Structure formats: structure tokens, C-alpha cells
């Protein structure tokens, strides 16, 4: 970037969040780690639990233009081929994680099926009133999204969960 270029506020905001104590605590605790951030594309690996109880990393691709005023576009990303994750790479087990990572297609792209996600929110306006605690609002931040995803990806880490 040249001197004199005006920094995009979304870029500044994401950089600040990646430097925040909350994000760093999650990294230190092994919950997630930054893979790459070349605005407007952010990639983060999140540590999850497979149905057999073993651990696995799941890569999430975010497009963050307009963040936080505009919701993020989020999809699972392949850690092998650097493209959208294949069905074989999607997490399985608990029905809620399978629901969120079903590879939902809309608007010409693939999206995580979560109320806070850009395309999901745009096509399901009822989610804002039905699931306000899962929807995006002005008080949310990147950590909200990462904690939601970490929670989903570790629903298998529970006695009695599908094995």
C-alpha cells in the first residue's frame, strides 16, 4: 500500500481485533489461529472435535468488506486445496454442526448456515427475530463469530455424542 492511501475502516477494525487480548487468548488456548489476512479475505483455522473424539482443524474463509456494519460472508475452506471445502471435508456428528456446515449455496456462493452470516441473514430476515442471540448486531465482533464456530465445532466433545 502506498503512503497516502486511505486505510479501509474494515481493514483497520479486523487488524485491531486480530491484535486484541480476546483473539490472542484464543490462540494461546489452542482454540483458533490466524492463517492469513489479505483484505478483504481472512482465513482462520478453528480447532474442533470429530465424532470419534479426535481433534481436527477446520479452516474458515471470511470476506470482510464493510465489517462490522456489513455481515461477513463465511464458508468452510479446504486446508488441502485452498478452495471451498468439499463435502468430504465437512465436520460431521452433532446435528447442529452438520446443519451449520452443510455447504449451503445461495447468491452464487457457498455459506456457513449461521444467522450471523451475510447471505443467510439476507435470505432469512425472520432469523433476526427468531434467533436474536445468534444474529449479527452492532455490538458484535469477530470474537463472537469465532466463539460461535468453536462451540459448534466442538459439540462432538461430549459423552453420549454421536461416535
Amino acid at each position, binding site marked *: 500500500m502506498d503512503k497516502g492511501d486511505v486505510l479501509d475502516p474494515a481493514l483497520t477494525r479486523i487488524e485491531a481485533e486480530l491484535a*486484541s487480548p480476546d483473539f490472542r*487468548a484464543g490462540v*494461546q*488456548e489452542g482454540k483458533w489461529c490466524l492463517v492469513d489476512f489479505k483484505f478483504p479475505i481472512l482465513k482462520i483455522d478453528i480447532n474442533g472435535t470429530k465424532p470419534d473424539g479426535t481433534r481436527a482443524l477446520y479452516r474458515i474463509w471470511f470476506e470482510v468488506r464493510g465489517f462490522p456494519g456489513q455481515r461477513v460472508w463465511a464458508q468452510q475452506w479446504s486446508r488441502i486445496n485452498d478452495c471451498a471445502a468439499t463435502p468430504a471435508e465437512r465436520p460431521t456428528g*452433532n446435528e447442529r454442526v452438520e446443519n451449520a456446515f452443510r455447504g449451503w449455496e445461495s447468491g452464487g456462493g457457498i455459506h456457513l448456515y449461521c444467522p450471523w452470516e451475510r447471505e443467510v441473514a439476507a435470505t432469512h430476515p425472520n432469523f433476526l427475530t427468531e434467533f436474536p*442471540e445468534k444474529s449479527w448486531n452492532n455490538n458484535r465482533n469477530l470474537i463472537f463469530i469465532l466463539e460461535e464456530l468453536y462451540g459448534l465445532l466442538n459439540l462432538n466433545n461430549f459423552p453420549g455424542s454421536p461416535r
Partner: protein
Amino acid sequence: MQHQSTIESVVILVECAGKTDIQEIEIPLGSKVRDIAIRAGEICGIPFEEIKIFDQDSEVELDLELLIDSKYPHHHTHHAHKQKHIKVEVFYGGGEHKKEYPPTAKVETVREWAVKEFRIDPSKAPKMELAKHGTKVELPRDARIGRFVPPKEDELKLDLIEGVKPNG
């Protein structure tokens, strides 16, 4: 901006009672845990003498005289709370159960206990979550309960609810 500790100081991440954001406390090497308590007390708004400092997953508070030297696990997230124990009360189906937990106990630990106490069917158990009493705000299973208890309180009331599965 880097957050590497210098030779002279360390940066410790601290989760303070009732604060949803983790706080960053930088203190000189050679300080004591007491110095973390002093800074945490300022953040929580209570006298440091009343603050207990816990190391990450520990249920036992740290000795305030413990020296913070180069071998100290400063990379662990610490927890600051006034209480040694939180009185947790969980409601479900018209009933309730109570138990005490340290502030560092994870929501998941409480959830597993509540599922057993209320004898939730094993097929339904994975779907159950804990939410703040009277709300549908599910608590992250990996979060420590101290985060949800304001500094001057010692109780946490929760509802056991079925987790949300959006579908449109």
C-alpha cells in the same frame, strides 16, 4: 504491533469478573501475583485484597506472593474474581438444582452436571445448553463461569434449554 514480552516485563491476559472482554496486564518481571491482583482490582472496581487470581484451569487461587519470573507461565490466561466459589442454580422443567463451582469452572462442566441432575435422556443431552436465566442467550460451553458473574456477586442462575438449530 507485536505483543512480545520484553526482557523487563511480561504481558498477562486476564479474564476479570463480569467482563466479557479479556484484559491485558503488563507487569515487570520480578513482580508478584499480588501485582496482577492490584491491576485486576482496579479493572473490577474492588479492593485488591479481595481479589483471587486463578491460573487458567486451576480451581485453587494463586499465592499472591508467588514470583513472576522468566519461568512463570505468563502465557496462561488468568482469571480474577472476588469469590472462591460461585453458587450456581440451574432451572429446568419447573425444577432447580444448586451446586458451587470455582470461577474457573467451564460452562461445559456445569452443563454436564445439570444434564445428569435433571436426568435428561441421553439422546437429548447433546442438544442441551445453558443460558442465562430467563433468556435464550446460550453460554459458550468453553467459557469460564466467572465471566458471567459481576465482581460483587456470588450467584449465577441458569436455564437448561435446547440448543438452537436454525432452519429456514
